């Protein structure tokens, strides 16, 4: 078991990034034209990186599986993006944003990366405003802020309930400009199938054209994977239907370590599950917790009456309501971090106080704030979310409180990267949600958009040059090379195999089964026995999949079932690693809650002595993973128990 080198620069925390940039290698303009960079993913991380690198003069090829770069799942982010501007004058600073993010992550993130993130957060806002992103404004014309969980300051910038959309359209605009200028070439409706490695360095990818079904070979001096999160391993999540782990799973198999796979985020405020035909879950933004109060009935009888449809929420008197977050965490109240809020909701429901037809829901109530601020203010702040809720649930949330329940939302784990965002494969980089870097064991709200854009605009375009400066003498390679041919052949073999099974069960059947195993055993409460059971069940399900999956159609046409099958095959392997990692981590921290390790009050019991490290897994073969540790050293921050009381 080797220790991993994060290549964190020396020197005081606050000057590491400046120092790095002052001393890194750069590529001169005439050489930039000779260097090709492949970027997979057009979300915030991918599109921002492609646009910035194109502007610098590199040749970029960018890939996405949707029909347009603008449809990457970043588009769905609702609530906002953090920055340390301190516009409200409430005492915010780079240090405080850094501190909150480390603490929010339950002391499982790398100090230097998080500090850099906080440092560039302000540049992101400047950049986006220059692009014409229509952030919310005060009457005087300056930018407005709101609060998010895990912070006592107001530092979240937003564009109504569509912040991700507006940020992505900003970076999509910048990307489109480069496409027009010819520095970036776009490959939409293309899926990355594998990475190509030549002499130990990433030199290209194999992609499948999703319209013709043909495999293509693409060369790059460097490859960047920015393919988003793997939450769909749980089947039901707030992710898009096509969100997948395939790109980061294939690079894992080629030597890029996978870090902290068990750090998954369950978001407290989602619309509850209502039927087994359901295909996805819808988030109700965390920003709602600014004005909404979360509660369940104090009396079990009331909860039961509500479940049976005999009692309405509004008929439960104030004194009979248990605002359990305000009760348990008076200092942060409804704005505790997500992991804390989710577990508290689950605890109440498990104890018999859950509401709604299934009993798996709690109330999110706006009555008080509507009384205080007026309906129009609530409408201006959250109108589109209220509309979304009403369309799905068929109930008016201005009148009746919303019902919400936790759901899988985000994955903190991902490809292991060093300070330069380089993976353990030379020349292969990972950015955005696809990497593991900045959120430790729990991500605070409004910090994924920040990280995606930090990686894409301000970090990767620098750090990748430090690598590429050494590659200027490497001529463009022909994709006839054996390494490309072999990689393509391996992909072809796998696809042929999938098509030849001709079994009896649909892809969705297997995905749903996997989802059930994951949610029940590797979800909000994990135990040693449950995790072992999950590993066993996943292995069996995987074997069954490869014997019995049914994929209609052929390889060389639009074949959406084949696309899904290819992704589910990878989830069936990832699920096992996730459980493996959760089993290894004998502690509770952030989103990883092992029931054996909790305080008397049911809070996470971390074990810093034994587990203050990043668990980076190396692939050795199917179901065979080796653990490498990156110890986490805190020089600036005192590691404490996380308290939000």
């Amino acid at each position, binding site marked *: 078991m080797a220790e991993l080198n994060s290549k964190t620069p020396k020197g005081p925390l606050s000057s590491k990034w400046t120092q790095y940039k002052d001393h890194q290698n750069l590529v001169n303009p005439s050489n930039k034209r000779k260097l090709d960079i492949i970027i997979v993913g057009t979300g915030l991380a991918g599109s*921002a990186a492609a646009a*910035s690198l194109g*502007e610098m003069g590199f040749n970029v090829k960018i890939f996405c599986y949707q029909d*347009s*770069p*603008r*449809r990457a799942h970043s*588009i*769905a982010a609702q609530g906002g993006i953090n920055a340390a*501007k301190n*516009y409200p004058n409430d005492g915010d600073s780079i240090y405080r944003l850094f501190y909150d993010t480390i603490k929010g992550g339950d002391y499982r993130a790398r100090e230097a990366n998080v500090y850099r993130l906080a440092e560039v957060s302000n*540049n992101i*806002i*400047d*950049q*986006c*405003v*220059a*692009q*014409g992103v*229509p952030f*919310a*404004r*005060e009457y*005087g*014309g*300056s*930018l407005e802020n709101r609060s998010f969980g895990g912070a006592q300051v107001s530092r979240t910038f937003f564009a*109504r309930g*569509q912040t991700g*959309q*507006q940020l992505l359209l900003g970076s999509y*605009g910048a990307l*489109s*400009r480069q*496409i*027009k200028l010819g520095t970036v070439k*776009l490959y*939409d409706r293309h899926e990355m199938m594998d990475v190509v490695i030549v002499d130990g360095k990433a030199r290209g990818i194999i992609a499948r054209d999703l319209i013709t079904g043909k495999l293509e070979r693409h060369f790059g001096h460097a490859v960047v994977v920015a393919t988003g999160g793997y939450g769909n391993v749980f089947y039901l999540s707030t992710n*898009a239907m096509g969100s997948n782990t395939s790109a980061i799973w294939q690079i894992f198999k080629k030597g890029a370590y996978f870090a902290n796979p068990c750090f998954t985020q369950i978001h407290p405020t989602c619309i509850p599950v*209502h*039927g087994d*035909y359901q*295909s*996805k879950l819808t988030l109700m933004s965390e920003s709602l917790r600014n004005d909404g109060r979360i509660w369940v009935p104090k009396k079990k009888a009331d909860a039961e009456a509500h479940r049976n449809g005999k009692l309405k929420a509004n008929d439960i008197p104030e004194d009979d309501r248990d605002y359990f977050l305000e009760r348990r965490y008076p200092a942060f109240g409804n704005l505790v971090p997500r992991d804390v809020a989710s577990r508290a909701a689950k605890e109440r429901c498990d104890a018999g106080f859950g509401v709604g037809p299934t009993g798996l829901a709690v109330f999110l109530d706006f009555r008080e704030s509507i009384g205080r601020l007026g309906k129009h203010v609530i409408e201006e702040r959250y109108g589109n979310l209220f*509309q979304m809720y009403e*369309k*799905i649930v*068929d109930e008016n949330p201005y009148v009746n409180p919303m019902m919400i329940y936790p759901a899988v939302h985000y994955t903190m784990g991902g490809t292991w990267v060093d300070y330069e965002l380089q993976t353990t494969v030379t020349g292969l980089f990972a950015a955005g949600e696809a990497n593991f870097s900045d959120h430790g064991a729990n991500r605070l709200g409004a910090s994924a958009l920040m990280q995606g854009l930090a990686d894409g*605009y*301000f970090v990767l*375009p620098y750090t990748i040059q430090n690598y590429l400066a050494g590659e200027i003498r490497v001529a463009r390679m022909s994709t006839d090379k054996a390494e490309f041919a072999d990689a393509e052949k391996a992909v072809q073999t796998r696809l042929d195999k999938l098509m030849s099974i001709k079994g009896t069960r*649909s892809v*969705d059947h297997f995905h749903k089964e996997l989802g059930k195993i994951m949610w029940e055993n590797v979800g909000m409460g994990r135990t040693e026995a449950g995790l072992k059971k999950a590993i066993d069940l996943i292995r069996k399900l995987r074997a069954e999949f490869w014997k019995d999956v*049914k994929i*209609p159609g052929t390889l060389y*046409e*639009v074949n*959406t*079932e084949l696309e899904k099958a290819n992704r589910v095959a990878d989830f069936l392997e990832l699920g096992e690693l996730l459980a493996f990692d959760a089993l290894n981590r004998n502690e509770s921290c952030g989103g990883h809650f092992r029931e054996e390790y909790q305080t008397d009050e049911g809070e996470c019991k971390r074990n810093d002595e034994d587990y203050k490290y990043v668990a980076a897994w190396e692939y050795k073969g199917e179901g065979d993973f080796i653990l490498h540790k990156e110890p986490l050293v805190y020089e600036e921050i005192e590691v404490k128990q996380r308290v939000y009381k």
Partner: protein
Amino acid sequence: MKLTLKIWRQKDAKSAGKFVTYALDNISPNCSFLEMLDILNEQLIEKNDDPVVFDHDCREGICGMCSLYINGRPHGPDDAVTACQLHMRKFHDGDTIVIEPWRARPFPVIRDLMVDRSAFDKIIQEGGYVSVNTGGAAEANNILVGKENSELAMDAAACIGCGACVAACKNGSAMLFVSAKVSQFALLPQGQVEAKQRVKKMVRMMDELGFGNCTNTYACEAECPKLISRSNIARMNREFLCAKVS
């Protein structure tokens, strides 16, 4: 619920298409429209038929990927929603539902209900942005934007690029889509420097790609899932005239 579905099936861009009728039973009114199609597809796979191909991804009305023409209306009978946000409770037991792809010359069918909308990307590439490189942006609060204009800009920027406006228009005009982007920047100080070039180039590309003319019937506005207002079209026309005379 019991339903009869008449769905446009077309093998690929070159083949001719036709309607095929399917019967479906036991659909919950709480099911979304796309989940209803999932159920149909499960049954087709069961019977060794090819599932119906349709575009979708976020399933929450924001990515703009879903694009179904349902009973003669883009995104179906409900107002201000996308097809993925439409629920079966908007239909009745025993209904016949006709499902087609977007039909417009610049959006050729790829397969079944899936069309090629890359024409929209090409229009944006002409100028749907502020030309500013990464780095070197000024302090954000140096640019002040009045609340009213910023709200109007946001209204316009809410467009999801779905193409329902084009599908709704008898001329296949893309005016609502293009004007939404032009308006966003026309309303903001950041957009002023390139305003004239932007509108000219985007309109020229729109014409080149074969989108039709606007004859002021405003079916686009009526069908837009994001309630993009026709006033954006008027604003773009002003911008365009201004750009041409100067």
